[in-house]
């Protein structure tokens, strides 16, 4: 059972020193812009900037290699699916048809289709460096305090902080239970019939649920004893004021967002049409 999961890694770099608030805003706005625009030029520029920022962060690529490979496989399958289901989607979007290679039946490769699918892929890749950076450079407790800073109710921020704090614990619980059940001969692989597999899965999931419900009781009792939630606002041990670097990053983001949205929409369509 591979146990790889992305998590915070402390390194000293300009990106790591940025305030969690800055990184959160950067990630959210960046993702929104990437979702809205379909302009190839903007996406290409954003992806380049994203890669440059990733390089500045000095996060070694091997630390994030597994999820990057997984996403590339996923994107490849997604592209195949798009083509199988709608080989002429690009022709419809760009309103012209430049054939390149006829395959079988209705499957003809057109430049429009390839351009469209490249854009879908770019859109997804553009978010990737920022999302990875946000995950590996932000300390979970700082993340909770930063949510409160941008106006999210601190109770919800705290729920997220609990989630991030307990994922490794629950993962350990899950493995213990799964190993214990496997030593008793439980098989989850394709060798078993589907019905048995489901039954076996339940006998792993059920102890995990019971122990988690116990955990909820314990943690909420402890929090209530300490008076959690009695005030409308709270302070955070991890909270830091914004520094010069943060203002520079936010200014950069504002300029980028403005340019991206202007270039995308000044001709009245979110698609960039070179045909």
């Amino acid at each position, binding site marked *: *059972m591979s146990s790889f999961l992305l998590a915070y890694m402390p390194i000293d770099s300009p990106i790591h020193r940025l305030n969690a608030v800055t990184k959160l805003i950067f990630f959210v706005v960046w993702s929104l812009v990437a979702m809205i625009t379909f302009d190839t030029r903007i996406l290409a520029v954003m992806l380049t900037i994203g890669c440059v920022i990733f390089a500045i962060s000095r996060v070694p690529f091997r630390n994030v290699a597994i999820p990057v490979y997984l996403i590339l496989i996923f994107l490849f399958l997604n592209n195949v699916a798009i083509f199988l289901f*709608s080989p002429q989607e690009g022709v419809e979007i760009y309103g012209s048809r430049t054939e390149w290679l006829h395959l079988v039946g209705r499957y003809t490769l057109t430049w429009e289709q390839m351009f469209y699918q490249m854009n879908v892929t770019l859109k*997804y890749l553009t978010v990737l460096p920022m999302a990875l950076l946000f995950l590996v450079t932000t300390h979970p407790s700082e993340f909770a305090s930063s949510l409160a800073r941008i106006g999210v109710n601190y*109770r919800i921020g705290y729920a997220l902080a609990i*989630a991030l704090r307990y*994922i490794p614990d629950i993962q350990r619980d899950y493995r213990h239970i799964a190993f214990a059940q496997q030593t008793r001969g439980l098989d989850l692989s394709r060798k078993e019939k589907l019905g048995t597999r489901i039954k076996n899965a339940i006998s792993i999931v059920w102890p995990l649920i019971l122990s988690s419900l116990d955990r909820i009781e314990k*943690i*909420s009792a402890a929090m209530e004893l300490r008076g959690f939630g009695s005030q409308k606002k709270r302070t955070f041990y991890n909270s830091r004021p914004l520094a010069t670097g943060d203002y520079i990053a936010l200014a950069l983001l504002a300029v980028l967002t403005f340019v991206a949205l202007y270039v995308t929409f000044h001709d009245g369509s979110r*698609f960039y049409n070179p045909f």
Partner: protein
Amino acid sequence: MFQKMLTVKTIVAIGIGTAVFVILGRFGSIPTGVPNTNIETAYAFLALMSVLFGPIAGVLIGWFGHGIKDAIMYGSPWFSWVIASGIVGLVIGLAANQIKISEGEFGKAEIIKFNIYQVIGNVLAWLLVAPVLDILIYAEPVNKVWTQGIVAGIANIVTVGVIGTILLLAYAKTRTKTGSLSKDA
């Protein structure tokens, strides 16, 4: 509003529930034999938590859980489907008031009610929200997102219908029914 609806217990339930959802989403999916279609035990768990802790817990466990799972597995969330997961929790959570599971009541009537809600929730999420957002955000082909939505929808309806119901039945058995004590003669 938050003070009243978000009790400390709900907050912790959202946190721990999210963590369990992430782990089940990562390790707890059973291949069915049909390619790319898995039985996601995470959604059965989401249904249980929604019935136990209500719609707000349901929607937030769905969003946070799916979002974090995507993020730590692939590096970034597929937003349209993350939002859809929250809808499943929200709709099933609406059944929480009508199913008194903490009092050990989970008979035929409750099973039917639960399944009506879960079917509505899954249909809304995978046949409406997820495909529409895929088209709006990623401009994906209509027939592709619909096919994906129908496959995911059916897989999740069956998963929640079978495993979710079993989990709720098992949970109800751990609770003491009101009025279950009788005086010895």
